[in-house]
């Protein structure tokens, strides 16, 4: 189980808990004091991340695409911030 915490400067906090299997994300939970509208999209993001390998640019792109397809926006954190925190958790898992 890898976990990491990332405080965005001038923004909000992200926490990621994940497990990795064969280099890919098996389970992931993203928590924190950020804003995401609509809120339920967090579950779409977590679902989309499952099965993906740890590549910051790809994770960033993937999260951006989920937000775009759901017409969602995040406040206080960016897709890049989520991706960074996932990478940090992944490194701790390894």
């Amino acid at each position, binding site marked *: 189980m890898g976990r990491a915490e990332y405080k965005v400067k001038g*923004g*909000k*906090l992200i*926490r990621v808990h994940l497990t990795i299997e064969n280099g890919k994300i098996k389970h992931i*939970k*993203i*928590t*924190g*004091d*950020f*804003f*995401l*509208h*609509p*809120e339920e999209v*967090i579950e779409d993001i977590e679902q989309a991340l499952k099965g993906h390998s740890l590549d910051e640019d790809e994770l960033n792109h993937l999260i951006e695409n989920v937000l775009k397809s759901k017409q969602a*926006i995040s*406040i*206080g954190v960016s897709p890049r911030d989520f991706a960074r925190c996932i990478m940090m958790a992944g490194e701790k898992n390894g």
Partner: protein
Amino acid sequence: MVEKWRLLDTGLNNAFYNMALDEAIAIAKSKSLVPNTIRFFRWKPPAVSIGYFQSMEEEVDIKACDELGIDYVRRRTGGGAVYHDTEGELTYSIIVDQTHRLISEDFQETYQTLCSGLVLGLRKLGVPAEFKPINDIVSHGRKISGNAQTRGMNVVHQHGTILRKVDPALMFRVLKVPSEKIRDKMIKSVEERVTSINNVLGRNVSFRELKDALIEGFEEAFKIDLVTGNTTDFEENMAQKLKTEKYASREWNFRR
């Protein structure tokens, strides 16, 4: 003619009803059953509310809450964990149509606009308050109010807390600290970063006085008349249902 909004003062209630009624008002508003509304409320027993995306176990010392008789509830809005002391803070909600002139597509702008009613109200009270992005109001650089917004069903719902007096030591008995070693440090840091109306004014401000100032602030900033009203049967029934099925449920409160 000045636009009329409903003013609700629902007094002291528990955390689960408080959060359920907010959502019930938003649902009633989405069905055009009620006017745009500003609500004041307080928490009895005291409670911790956490943001939509937070983990209850990570944020809240559940054992300490149970021992102290403090409730814990997940909000429908994002943002951080808040300790709602019965005497220490006042909570408000704004429930307004998304098409209203005060609402922008831009969340940041809307926070600033809706918080302007609180800022003006606090200034009327003599508290030098200003909005601080993303979602705070500060006085002398210290946080005095935190706010959170959600949108859905063509309704904007913003709620937030206004600190009347603050007790950082108690706050950290109920909120989790990363380790016991840094508890004192965190208490100290909150003492430096957070303030309250009583602190700023150096006197005891009653809830009545605070609410009256905020009512004036909202009316002037929003160019509206606040008309004291009551919750509808629809809202009360919906609140009871949401309380039982959602906000008091373990499934909702521990879902993340």
